[in-house]
């Protein structure tokens, strides 16, 4: 596995732990379909949360949040519907969260969490 993929994997694991600590229940990880991939699917109460995790080593090429553009956001909302359809689940309350992980390799990685991004 290449270094950048490893970094992403680690970030996603950290984010999943982080979300569980926030009281969410992780129901799926790295779900793929033809349209793309969902990093984390979780439940917070009766709300279905589709979380996108962005991991960077530093801020040299911008903040991880800046890498989530309008197109990506629209795809995440579409994927949330696809996931529900694939699992024959009706989730009237859905939202998309974004988690950023900055892992410089020294000390603890920094996590930030944006809820309900539209």
């Amino acid at each position, binding site marked *: 596995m290449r270094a950048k993929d490893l970094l992403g994997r680690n970030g996603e694991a950290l984010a999943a732990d982080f979300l569980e600590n926030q009281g969410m229940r992780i129901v799926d990880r790295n779900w793929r379909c033809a349209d793309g991939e969902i990093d984390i699917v979780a439940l917070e109460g009766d709300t279905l949360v589709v979380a996108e995790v962005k991991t960077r080593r530093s801020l040299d090429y911008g*903040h991880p*949040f*800046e890498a*989530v553009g309008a197109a990506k*956001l629209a795809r995440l909302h579409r994927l949330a519907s696809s996931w529900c359809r694939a699992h024959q689940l009706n989730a009237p309350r859905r939202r998309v969260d*974004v988690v950023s992980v900055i892992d410089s390799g020294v000390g603890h990685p920094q996590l930030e969490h*944006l*809820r309900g*991004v*539209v």
Partner: protein
Amino acid sequence: MGVGRSYCVALVGLNGYIVEVEADIGQTLPNFVILGLPDAALNEAKERIRSAAQNSGIPLSRRKITANLIPASLPKRGSGFDLAITMAVLRAADDIQSIGGTVFIAELGLDGRLRPVRGILPAVMASVQAGYPDIVVAEANAAEAALVPGANVRGYKTLARLAFDFGADPKDLALDYDPPGEDVPDEADTATLAPDLCDVSGQGEARRALEVAAAGGHHMLLTGPPGAGKTMLAERLPGLLPDLADTAAMEVTAIHSLAAVQSSAVRLLRRPPFENPHHSATAAAIIGGGSGLPRPGAASRAHRGVLFLDEAPEYERRVLDALRQPLESGELVIHRSAGTAAYPARFQLILAANPCPCGKAAGKGTECTCTAMMRRRYFGRISGPLLDRVDIQLHVERVSLADFGNSGREEDTATVAGRVLAARLRQFQRLRTFGLETNSQVPGRTLRGQLRLPPGTTRILDTALERGTLTARGYDRVLRLAWTLADLGRSDSPDIDHIGQALGLRQAAAAT
């Protein structure tokens, strides 16, 4: 975190309005939105601000930034809002301490330097009037901004230094960055350029007329063949005019601050301006105009100075007639889609014209190839109502060989300007009670009322009026000129001689 607030000024013509800038940082993905009718230059502020803040060591929040310019309905233009938006955003992110009622007017460079903007003088005037005397500008604008009485102006070179003074954490600030300053033009630049009256050979009558025009603020029409020196004479008129008083100088500097593309005024413009547009100029170029909000035209740039229209009959008739309104009211009100702007335009009008389209009708006019019809049409372009407002109408002949040989012994500008100043002071003393400054402004009612001359003095005028060779309006104009001649001659009121000379200045051009 929360909402940050700062202040700026939006200019509509010469009138400025305080604009409140509020910035909010939302908890969502990074974005930057500017609300409140920004134009293209103002919308580009987002990119300038991000880079400038980053390079100053005080990066903007990586969240959704919303900047709102209030009142939202007022169209806002240009780059002068950069700094105010930046400060509001930094305040919203708690990067700097309280801003209070400080007004920020400057453009940002990508490296974090503060750049000057135009129209700083009227903007600062408006700000002080609205009760916001604390103003931060780019260092290159500081001298101009400080011309406004009552303004507490601070000039900064970089955003880093400004942020430091407003309590930003100095740890990462680029305080050492010192961009090179802007060039400040030398005072000598403008002073030495003015042409001197001693360059004009002969032309005693025309020189005298020019002196009278300068002393009384009279509008003037010069006719004569090409090469007679009409343009030379007109160019020397501003040199004869006295320096501008404080309020007038402020108005003139404000207009030129707005009209200038870049350079910033360092001191008040004390010399009367001279505008010499080409005769192909459109109405918008002379009166003011342009898309969106109108900019001042040549007539406004000539405010408190001289507007010289060379080859006046070559101008479009509607351009010339558009000047009638400012000649009457001293102001130009221009309406455009984005708003209405009023610019002052109290100028002294000097018209120059050839005697006919071919220009050879001078003297006996034997070489002239123009038909009588062509000549009439030529002068017909200068409409009657416009000529009605021109007190001095003078015919200038080609200079004779005798006068040309004698050149070098003519009076220079300084000598004549001295007499003009003395005459202006006499007028000021006399007309102060009427709220006027020069003889050219005195209404006919006053001339024939409080300033009435004894019947013996005005006899030739009364006779001419009776015979119908002089109109009632012409009568008043002769009186105005006679007063100016008396002021130049240090008399308390005009005598028969002054009236006679005044008649001469009026009728010299009547032959053509």
